[in-house]
């Protein structure tokens, strides 16, 4: 191995130069690697992103606004908003409760519990829809006799869409909170409690301010996924136009009817939500890092 023969270096200057060259490599390599990476990034991400908006406005702004204010589109938007309004609060409460139990206490089977919370992520969206058909379908479901007797429709109706959405968005808040709350430990809460604060007061004044950015991002992720979920919702919805169509399903229908500009116009709304999501993520993470770093600095002299 000729390359591994140690080089005898004469001066410090030479050594520094050799070190720099070996660690940084030649100047050409970064340029080549950055170019390839950027080409991949532009091809795979930027062009698809831009094309949504270009295609949406291809037939003019009039058609764009007509497409998103079409009565059926508005009904789809309304159903999506209702789904968000129900899904987000209850999954937020679940995420807070699960994170509190998991991060602030020690118990056996913790990893198993976290795996169960993660389960909806590792299941195909189609299977996620199927499991609720198997429970609530009025022809094949486990609860079919009961639902028929009561005259309640869940599958091929809005309740099914909401339940499937709750399932697929269930892990987001818990997943953002658990690692953060575990890292923060329990010392601050214990101090507040031993000084006589009530449990609720401790939560509102100690825990919540510490986790607010992660919580906000978790809520944002839940909202975005609830608005954009396609596979699971598609299985349980039955595609009844104006009744069980959410925004992504409306996009699919328009696209399959070759109304491409209209499909991309409605899709651009979902894309905007995704972009807002990314902005919130970056703000939240930079705030968390700043708090983390400030906390570290503050703690050093005390310890």
């Amino acid at each position, binding site marked *: 191995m000729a390359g591994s023969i140690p080089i005898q270096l004469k001066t410090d200057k030479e050594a520094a130069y050799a070190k720099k060259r070996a660690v940084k490599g030649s100047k050409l390599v970064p340029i080549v690697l950055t170019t390839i990476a950027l080409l991949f990034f532009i091809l795979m991400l930027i062009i698809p992103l831009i094309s949504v908006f270009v295609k949406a406005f291809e037939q003019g702004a009039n058609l764009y606004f007509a497409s998103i204010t079409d009565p059926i589109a508005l009904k789809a938007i309304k159903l999506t908003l209702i789904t968000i309004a129900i899904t987000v609060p209850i999954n937020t409460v679940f995420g807070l409760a699960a994170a509190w139990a998991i991060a602030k206490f020690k118990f056996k089977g913790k990893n198993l519990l976290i795996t169960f919370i993660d389960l909806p992520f590792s299941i195909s969206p189609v299977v996620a829809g199927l499991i609720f058909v198997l429970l609530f379908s009025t022809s094949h479901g486990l609860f079919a006799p009961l639902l028929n007797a009561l005259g309640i429709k869940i599958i091929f109706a809005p309740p099914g869409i909401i339940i499937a959405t709750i399932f697929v968005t269930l892990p987001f808040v818990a997943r953002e909170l658990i690692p953060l709350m575990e890292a923060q430990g329990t010392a601050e809460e214990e101090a507040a409690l031993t000084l006589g604060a009530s449990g609720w007061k401790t939560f509102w004044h100690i825990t919540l301010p510490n986790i607010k950015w992660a919580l906000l991002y978790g809520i944002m992720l839940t909202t975005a996924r609830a608005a954009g979920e396609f596979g699971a919702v598609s299985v349980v919805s039955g595609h009844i136009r104006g009744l069980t169509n959410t925004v992504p399903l409306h996009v699919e229908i328009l696209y399959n009817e070759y109304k491409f500009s209209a499909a*991309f116009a409605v899709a651009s709304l979902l*894309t905007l939500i995704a972009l807002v999501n990314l902005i919130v993520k970056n703000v939240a993470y930079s705030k968390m890092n700043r708090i983390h770093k400030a906390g570290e600095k503050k703690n050093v002299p005390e310890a």
Partner: protein
Amino acid sequence: MNIAIKPIKIKKKSVIPGFGITMGFTLTYLTLLVLIPVSMVFLNTAKIGFKEFWEIASSERVLASLKISFSTSFLAAVINVVFGLLLAWVLERYDFWGKKLIDGLIDLPFALPTAVAGISLTTLYSKNGWIGKLFAPFGIKISYTPLGIVVALVFIGFPFVVRTVQPVLESIDFEVEEAAACLGATRFQTFFRVILPELLPALITGFALAFSRSLGEYGSVVFISGNMPMKTEITPLLIRTKLEQYDYAGGTAVAAVMLIISFLLLLMINAFQWWANRHKSS
């Protein structure tokens, strides 16, 4: 600090309230919304009996769909490891204009609804699309072929690799590389002998995450694949087709196959991470 902790240790009970209620709520919620629904697939599969289950699972169309799903997901995950590593490397090691923006946009495939990604990629890669047009003269079709499925899976998968590799790359000490360099290693040797082994666990985890996400992916693939049975029909789509034909037993049996595969993958990822962590600390 010690004063605060000591009494708790003696009591061996936390002063923090709310374990019972939060744990009770978490378990009830998970049981009702996750455990019971997911177990329905296995209950219903058990109902149809093993012989019929095997007949469905080993039928030609199901096997063909599994073959397509596995091969496209594997290929996409390999591509994602290469380009994911490259992107993570460039973002961590080099400075260039717009780096922060790119870093912020990496997660777009996580945030963008799959249906939007699906129609956008299909339009771009069809023979009249911006990108498909460039390949059409060579007789290469991308949309409505297995190649199109790979494109969609690369799109949804690459952030997994970037985001698992980035923190590890950040944590590698420059001194290690300097030491390698001072001992006479070339930059090439340093990368393949020093940095890559360090990154390997993250790369394998990223590969597995992208692969398992790709296997279950539906929204983005359903538009670009063309959905021809035996040729471009992925397994999740086959489940959907069976349900639309009211073949609930068939759909459930295929779903059981998929669930078992995703459980095994989840188990392997967790076991591997546990092993990697132990290996690292010892």
